[in-house]
């Protein structure tokens, strides 16, 4: 599904990603762990098409498309979804309206009929329950005045509605208390399917207790320096990142 090969990325002339290789097959859940500032969010932004990043080397193939030459909306149409580490507040833009416009854009791309307001509300009804999002948040401005936990739940809710093929979850666990974490994890687990891949970015192993990854990668200083299964996450939890660094050196 996703094949990242030797990806080098610069931000403002500073090299942040220094040769990332990652292959994600359909249905797999990959966790990417790493200390703050190692380039995890940069990777998620580059994959979803945010401007301001210069790819100096490497390729990203997504379902036989050269992902890097597509606009953010084209990537979304193909099935890429990013759950933001810091969901953006957009005053004056209605949450439900935004999501309906997004869903219809994606449906149109897929050759499906657009949903009108009533069908849309019916469609999202169950998805709201999935992450126990308060319904009145739907009629508010996008993320405006939402609590930290509500913002993260709203991201997973959007993912449930848009049904992406590849979901990139950037620190969806950060800032959540244990109850909220369970709700979000249950939501994500419900969305796991053989056709859907996920890349979960986190620096706590805690999330992985609830969402079990198939693979764990360690990203340090712009490079994946070790990969393994979920046991690697436990080891990182116990021993920190230094031993992996030393091992790689």
């Amino acid at each position: 599904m996703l094949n990242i090969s030797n990806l080098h990325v610069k931000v403002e002339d500073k090299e942040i990603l220094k040769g990332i290789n990652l292959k994600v097959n359909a249905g797999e859940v990959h966790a990417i762990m790493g200390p703050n500032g190692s380039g995890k969010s940069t990777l998620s932004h580059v994959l979803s098409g945010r401007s301001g990043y210069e790819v100096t080397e490497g390729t990203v193939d997504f379902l036989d498309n050269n992902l890097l030459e597509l606009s953010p909306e084209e990537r979304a149409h193909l099935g890429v979804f990013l759950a933001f580490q810091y969901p953006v507040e957009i005053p004056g833009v209605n949450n439900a309206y935004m999501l309906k416009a997004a869903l219809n854009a994606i449906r149109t791309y897929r050759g499906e009929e657009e949903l009108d307001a009533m069908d849309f509300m019916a469609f999202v009804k169950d998805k709201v329950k999935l992450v126990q999002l308060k319904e009145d948040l739907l009629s508010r401005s996008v993320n405006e005045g939402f609590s930290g936990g509500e913002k993260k739940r709203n991201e997973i809710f959007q993912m449930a509605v848009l049904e992406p093929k590849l979901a990139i979850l950037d620190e969806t666990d950060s800032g959540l208390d244990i109850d909220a974490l369970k709700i979000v994890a249950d939501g994500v687990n419900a969305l796991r399917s053989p056709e859907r891949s996920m890349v979960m970015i986190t620096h706590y192993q805690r999330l992985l207790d609830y969402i079990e990854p198939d693979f764990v990668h360690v990203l340090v200083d712009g490079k994946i320096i070790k990969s393994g299964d979920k046991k690697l996450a436990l080891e990182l939890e116990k021993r920190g990142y230094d031993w992996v660094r030393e091992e790689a050196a």
Partner: protein
Amino acid sequence: MESLVSKFEQFLETEDNVTLSNNSLDWLTNARKKGIAHFAKVGLPTPRDEHWKYTNVAPIKKKEFSLTNTKEHDVKAADLDVFRFKNLETIELVFINGLFCSALSSTVSDERGIVLNNLSSWLAEGHQQDLTVDAGDYVFASLNNAFMSDGAVLHVADNELLEKPVHLIFVATDTEQATMTYPRIDIRLGKNAEAKLIESYVSLGEAKNLTNVLTNIIADENSQLEHYRIQEESDAAYHLANIFIEQKKDSRVTSHSVSLGSAIARVDAKVNLSETGTENILNGLFLGKGRQHTDHHLLVHHLSPHTRSEEYFKGILDNASRGVFNGKVVVHKDAQKIEAIQSNKNLLLSPNAEVDTKPELEIYADDVKCAHGATIGRLSDTELFYLRSRGISEEKARALLTFAFADDVVNRMSLVPVREYLERKLIGQLSSSDQIDDLKDLI
């Protein structure tokens, strides 16, 4: 425009609808003479004038506009439907190229003491009331005094409430010779009176007219007025407006100014909060595209303690358009415990668009609460990326964010049908046609 002084003598001699057929009224003749004398002395403003630094009226100066209008037109009631508010019953007065159109209008004169009429009919009824307005330094107000033509009179007696909003529609058509009109609107609310009035300035076709309107508002003790002006004249038109507001004890006046049309539009609002307990709110939204130029100059005088004012303006400038905002608040000596809020936020949609904004404060009292801010920005990259990452096209994401920026001002209006009318207008202006249908769900 340069020949205005020479036109004046003839204007004063003529007895017709344009001249209000009534040169025998002393106050009117005096107002006209004083007006033209001021204009003869100072002429049209130039960018050397501090208040006209950013707005050059040279294009107006060079053009010739005709004062004489024929009553003939082919405007039908249905032609105006697009300018009406759905689900809002209003009392409508229609003026076509400056002349009152009785066939398309209704008036009010009831035993409760509510008078709504066009100015020339009201004068013809023999009213002697002096409607003189002191133009001060406002030269276009002086010109309106000099050439004052038909317009509207809304007088509400003490303790009365006019339930239905008044809708004044000033229509300009694409006449062979460009016309200039000088409508006068006189609004007086008695003690505890209430009214709502909407002024619409519209064009049918590419009208190249000049409108120079003066709205004079006197709000007596504890009265309440909600006033709107929606200016959507053709891009070839020129629009000049003065709004003078005088507020007595505990009165509350809210005035919304929406500026969408005209090549050059300039609105001057002057507010006197003369007595204690008064509140004045000026809201505004200006949209510029092409080479349009839109200028709002506000001047609010806090003359008494315990008064409150708010200026809340937003501008959206596209292409090579230019916006000007100048909001000045003067807190006079002894006007203690006042509150004044000024805000002007601007959104530039193109690298060639420009805005000059200046909230000004002059304070001669010491116990005051004032806040002011002005911003000039572009659409947020972060917000755009968030929307696009969900699959929304860049074009639509831009339209959405721009609409949201503008809608904030629209939402400050109390008449929901007017809001909906404006939202439809905004959507029409902000997005290309294939986006419109979908964006309509917004409202």
